[in-house]
């Protein structure tokens, strides 16, 4: 079922390049992939670029400036399949923490000449600007998922990656629930699987970089966290971290912060 080489592009917006690096980190797999895949636009890997259209475009980063809005619209037009890759592209990223503050205050706090900074009011996930076909979550994305995604596109199927709660994967892996055994707050019950449960494996709670799972119930988790003694403010902070701007988490955060005020 393999056809002609897949033309793949990787574009970077407001981000740290960590997700792109995951593509480069595929090392061994990348070599076998190059028979089937051609990276025609991937500045992190090569200065040589080719114009669109692209079969698959991976977008890293959130949309934070008017120029980025403009560019991502053009990229969308050039792409058959557009994939938002990573926490920034899918949920606005850690920089979306500024979305809860006044932009002018943030600019003044960071830059000596805030008037030079042209930024959008919010750090936005790609889907708030253009249609996104698939999301690969995480900070950074998982290279196993990336590879599986590419292979699935290659056989011509609509890529499918399970999107259930991380708990399932965590427990399959044989981890002990950190919330039950150690009383550590963990977002695992409402966060999408895919990372391999890295944090709980090392005895930490999940801080949610994969964003809400399919049918997530963060409001129920928030109540439980308060029940076991967390303050509203701390629960809100936990949700805010990496994917707080996702619709489901944002709602809970707003309720918690509204309640605190």
């Amino acid at each position: 079922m393999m056809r002609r080489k897949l033309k793949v592009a990787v574009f970077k917006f407001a981000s740290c390049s960590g997700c792109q690096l995951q593509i480069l980190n595929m090392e061994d797999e990348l070599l076998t992939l190059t028979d089937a895949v051609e990276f025609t636009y991937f500045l992190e890997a090569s200065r040589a670029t080719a114009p669109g259209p692209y079969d698959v475009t991976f977008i890293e980063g959130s949309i934070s400036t008017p120029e980025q809005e403009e560019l991502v619209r053009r990229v969308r037009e050039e792409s058959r399949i557009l994939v938002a890759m990573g926490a920034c592209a899918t949920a606005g990223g850690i920089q979306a923490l500024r979305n809860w503050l006044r932009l002018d205050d943030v600019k003044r706090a960071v830059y000596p000449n805030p008037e030079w900074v042209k930024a959008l009011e919010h750090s936005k996930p790609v889907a708030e600007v253009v249609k996104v076909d698939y999301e690969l979550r995480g900070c950074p994305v998982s290279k196993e998922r990336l590879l599986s995604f590419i292979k699935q596109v290659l056989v011509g199927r609509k890529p499918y990656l399970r999107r259930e709660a991380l708990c399932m994967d965590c427990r399959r892996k044989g981890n002990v629930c950190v919330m039950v055994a150690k009383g550590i707050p963990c977002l695992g019950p409402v966060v999408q699987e895919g990372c391999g449960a890295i944090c709980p494996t090392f005895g930490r709670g999940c801080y949610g970089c994969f964003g809400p799972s399919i049918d997530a119930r963060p409001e129920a988790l928030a109540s439980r966290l308060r029940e076991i003694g967390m303050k509203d403010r701390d629960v809100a902070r936990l949700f805010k971290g990496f994917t707080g701007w996702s619709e489901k988490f944002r709602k809970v955060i707003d309720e918690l912060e509204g309640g605190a005020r």
Partner: protein
Amino acid sequence: MVSGGIYSGKFGELRKLFNALRLRGYRVIAPKLEDSVIRLKEVTSFDEVPYGWEDIQAPGKYSVREGGKHFRHGPDAPKRILYPPRLELFRLRPDWSVEYPKERFPPTALFAIKPCDLASISVMDRVQGGIGDPYYLALRKKLIIIVENCVEPGATCFCSTMGTGPEARDGFDIAYTRLDDDLVVFRPGSDLGVELLSELNIEPATDEVLRKYYDALKNASLKAKAPFELERLPDELELGLNSPVFKEVAERCFGCAGCNMVCPTCFCFDVIDEPELDGGAVRVRVWDGCFSYTYAEVAGGNFRKDLWARYRHWVLHKFAYWVRQFGVFGCVGCGRCITWCPAGIDLRETIKSVVEWVRSRGGS
């Protein structure tokens, strides 16, 4: 098969038994303290078994302390060993020929597992065994079971209600009970069990020891009770299908499927087909659970799109449907789904409430 009498010996005889298993070449899987949790893992020395430790379990809470007399089962059930969470079934080459992974099935001894977990194996014998799961059967054939009866059930245990404990009735090779620091009672349950016990220094239990034994188990049995009875339970629960209780409890549920994962009998799996770059494919089986959103999803819709319906299905499956499907309850009363629920939801309370709802409507 012999139905053995009751014999007593000193604590040191347990060590001998453990060593005898190792000498016979068994991989011994036993409770083992790891990072403050009692796991079920391979152990190479008797000293790794956490005698002298105790766990404290409550809905959504678990801890251990040293100096306690009796440990119970931790989060890992025998299912993890006999029915692994992720199993590659086969690879298809581009020409459709089939390649199987090379599995090794070492003779395995489960040492010091609890009667509820023993019962879960007998449930799996009907489910995975009954349908001929080859991986399960290969390991099961070479399995030897040494069970430790529970004289101090935990706060989330209800084996007594489910009829699975605190004393193991059958299906084991050896059952033992620690009556005090240096008095252990042994009971063989198979020819192999008799053979292994022959190597120990044990005596038929005296009248005094027997009395102590029965008293201890009777006391334990009074503790491990749930606030419901099994009689008519499947029918009563089915009369409660429309009870608001499921919706009320599901408000607190995260739908994380953690209970499915720790349950010693939950058998559902998902099939994952992964393409290979050479044009072939791999088929993998992973544990799935009825709490997951996609569990009952088809291309045209989702038969249980609401969490309360998934919660209801799970409860009903364990306590009603399972009986109709396999002739036994799907629950062995181990309480793992209660202890290890991050939301702290107590299954026993749900069942009690549904039954009360049914009765209040004159449904029983």
